[in-house]
């Protein structure tokens, strides 16, 4: 399993992956990612949903903190171990044009994660 499977590596996805792989352990909330990857919400969230479905990204709710000043808890996204591996590989391949593995060759069916 060395590709994003049914998820095609588009420019916006590449930017999101770059942000996420910069520090794979870091948690990002949506607006944070929007700013860092310079993407509109209408592009980012469908992408996150797909990555989450593929098991490449995991989401978790922030615990309610008393010092948050009444701010509602946010949902944070982070690469899974599998996601970090796949993302690094894809980005490395994207950096070398013409040597890309065709998407979908390594993973047979949509939604067959882990």
């Amino acid at each position: 399993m060395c590709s994003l499977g049914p998820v095609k590596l588009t420019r916006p996805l590449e930017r999101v992956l770059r942000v996420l792989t910069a520090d794979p352990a870091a948690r990002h909330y949506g607006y944070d990612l929007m700013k860092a990857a310079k993407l509109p919400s209408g592009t980012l969230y469908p992408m996150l949903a797909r990555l989450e479905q593929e098991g490449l990204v995991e989401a978790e709710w922030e615990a309610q903190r008393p010092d948050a000043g009444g701010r509602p808890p946010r949902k944070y996204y982070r690469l899974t171990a599998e996601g970090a591996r796949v993302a690094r590989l894809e980005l490395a391949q994207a950096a070398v044009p013409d040597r890309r593995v065709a998407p979908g060759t390594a993973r047979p069916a949509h939604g067959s994660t882990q």
Partner: protein
Amino acid sequence: MTAMPRVQRIAEGLIRASGRRLPDEERAERCREWSAELPAILYDESVHPDLMRSVRALSYSAGIAVTTRRLSRAARLPRRAPGSAWRDGAISARPGNLGLRATIGLASWLVIIFTTVSLLRAFPHPGGWPVVLGLGLAGAFVVFCLADIVRAPAVRYLPKWAWALICAVQIPGGGIIYLSVGRVGRSPSLPPGSAQSR
């Protein structure tokens, strides 16, 4: 700064409205996630001036509408066999209620005209950004209607090019007439996925 809570309420309302497209089990959590981002946008110290933050929050909510549309499409499409036609008469079978739709259209047109006239009376010489804002809104509305016509699988009563012409010639009346009368909205009588198929 005082406008922020109001903008936040509007944006939350938009997010809730967009969330209605999602299946029940997803809706609450998604809306909670997206609404929770609004304070971060509205009180983002790195963005100046305040107006810009409001614009960002509203365009964020607009992006949520795009998101829910894509998510619901992605969830629905696999259920439809590829290449299968949608059920015959799915559109014509939809209860038309032309009178009600035409009334709603006329009413919204009157409201817009009335508001415009009273605004023009209140500010006899509007200059600068109100004019730009008004023209921008009008332009955005026309573009929205045209895009909707192009993307729709079918429209009612008139051919697509005729609706497009009406929308472009009479602003905003044509667009309102199209949205209230000519548009085939999503409805339970349409099979899943067909409302988005091109």
